[in-house]
């Protein structure tokens, strides 16, 4: 592997983040803080504890996961879509660089940014609610694995999208609803039994549950199911990206 191209892509993507600091970092932090104000302080004070955890603290892992999923997808999709849109992708495709190096550069940068944001939001939430992290190793593992997996998904969306509208389609119509309905703001045992069963078909439930377990030791599904689901996602994204590069789908005529 040649690290120079990976470094070049990674640094260029991180430089884009620095150029758009307000949009990249400040905006997600503000919107997450607003969730805390509304759900944590205003509404949360009227909600009793969930599984022995105050409601404000209960939603922290879900909020981080919500931001992690949406930001990973949007960062990675925009990172590869923009060169396609501007035409400068010719340079990437004509460079002596392997598919793996391209993916590491773009996905690595998108995931780094999401992880950084996740940690910033974690620190911000500490200002609003008392936090405890029961399993720091697992917390970081979930954070990194989720960021990488959904950055891979974003990369696929960026290649698939042939316009800005499509770029927003999956994050807005798929990721956000699944995250809201995936137990970010509630425990699924608060739902009627029928909806509990339906909810188990939502893959985000497993991510939120595993992440919440790493904080408070409480979960909706087993740790193995959460790890298995994210591994499945990761494998599916890697297979899809392998196919994209092998066939040149939406990249090479």
């Amino acid at each position, binding site marked *: 592997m040649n690290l120079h*191209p990976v470094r070049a892509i990674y640094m260029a993507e991180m430089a884009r983040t620095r150029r758009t600091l307000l949009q990249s970092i400040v905006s997600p932090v503000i919107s997450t803080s607003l969730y805390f104000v509304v759900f944590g302080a205003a509404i949360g004070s009227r909600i009793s504890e969930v599984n022995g955890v105050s409601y404000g603290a209960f939603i922290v892992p879900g909020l981080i996961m919500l931001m992690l999923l949406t930001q990973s997808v949007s960062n990675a999709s925009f990172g590869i879509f923009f060169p396609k849109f501007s035409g400068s992708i010719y340079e990437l495709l004509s460079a*002596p660089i392997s598919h793996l190096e391209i993916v590491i550069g773009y996905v690595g940068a998108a995931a780094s940014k999401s992880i950084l944001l996740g940690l910033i939001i974690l620190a911000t939430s500490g200002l609003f609610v008392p936090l405890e992290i029961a399993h720091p190793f697992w917390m970081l593992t979930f954070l990194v694995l989720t960021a990488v997996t959904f950055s891979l998904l974003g990369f696929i969306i960026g290649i698939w999208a042939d316009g800005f509208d499509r770029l927003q389609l999956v994050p807005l119509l798929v990721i956000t609803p699944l995250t809201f309905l995936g137990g970010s703001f509630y425990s699924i045992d608060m739902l009627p039994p029928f909806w509990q069963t339906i909810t188990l078909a939502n893959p985000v439930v497993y991510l939120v549950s595993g992440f919440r377990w790493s904080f408070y030791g409480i979960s909706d599904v087993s740790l193995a199911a959460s790890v298995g689901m994210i591994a499945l996602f990761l494998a599916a994204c890697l297979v899809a990206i392998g196919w994209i590069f092998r066939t040149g789908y939406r990249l090479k005529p």
Partner: protein
Amino acid sequence: MNDPIITINGLNKTYEGGFQALTHIDLTIHRGEIFALLGPNGAGKTTLISVVCGLVNPTAGHVLVDGFDNITHYRQARERIGLVPQELTNEAFETVWNTVSFSRGLFGKAPNPAHIEKVLKSLALWDKRNNRLMTLSGGMKRRVLIAKALSHEPRILFLDEPTAGVDVELRRDMWEVVRQLRDNGVTIILTTHYIEEAEEMADRIGVINRGELVLVEEKAALMSKLGSKQLTLNLHSPLTEIPAHLQRFELSLAAEGYELIYTYDGSQEEDGHAISELLTALEREGVTFKDLNTRQSSLEDIFVDLVKERA
């Protein structure tokens, strides 16, 4: 000079919709030459370059770059190539310095600020190094694309319509840059609409039409082989028809009989004798002239004839 640096064999490209853009292209580019690829719009010039550079998958055939297959040994092949695309494609918000440095890294080279500085200075971009690309003129953006292509010190440079939309002064500057690159051992392949450009710069010329390589020839040989010459005599008195004794010469009348035009093959030694004979015959017929000039057909004439012939 005849050491091959790019060898293209049996290259075909049919796009998904069924359009055949390239039909069995066989072509060898020699190390250190400037090769001009001429052809009308949609002839297949850009597709051919794109296949060599790895932007388009070929349907059949293969390409060797300095002995390396451009698909199975893409790293070795591509690191030797720099590509300047036809479209002005740039990351608008980046600075000149950053975008050129990025290209060097992307092509697997360690950072080398001294080289980037040299490239920017050679293209008169040094003063603009901290400018964002969106603030540059079209000509400057074109130079940035060339700088990006040269950032990783390629041995082969593809220039796809390098001077399209560029003013005359800048065009001449770019020709000078290209010549300097050739003098430094870089092989240049350029596509162009400007016949003048090919005529001015190329060592060899290939003409592509409807996806087929119609002809590949040394420029001088091509001009001499296919180029004809014309001798135009401005007559004192107009002629209504070619005098009978002059019928054996290939003559025509123009400018309402005031111009007598003799078309001949400039490459033959006997043409010189033919001109003397024509002038003697004219004197004998009492046809006098006040001025004369000769004109060799340009590459443009040759190109138009070739393309028309195959249409």
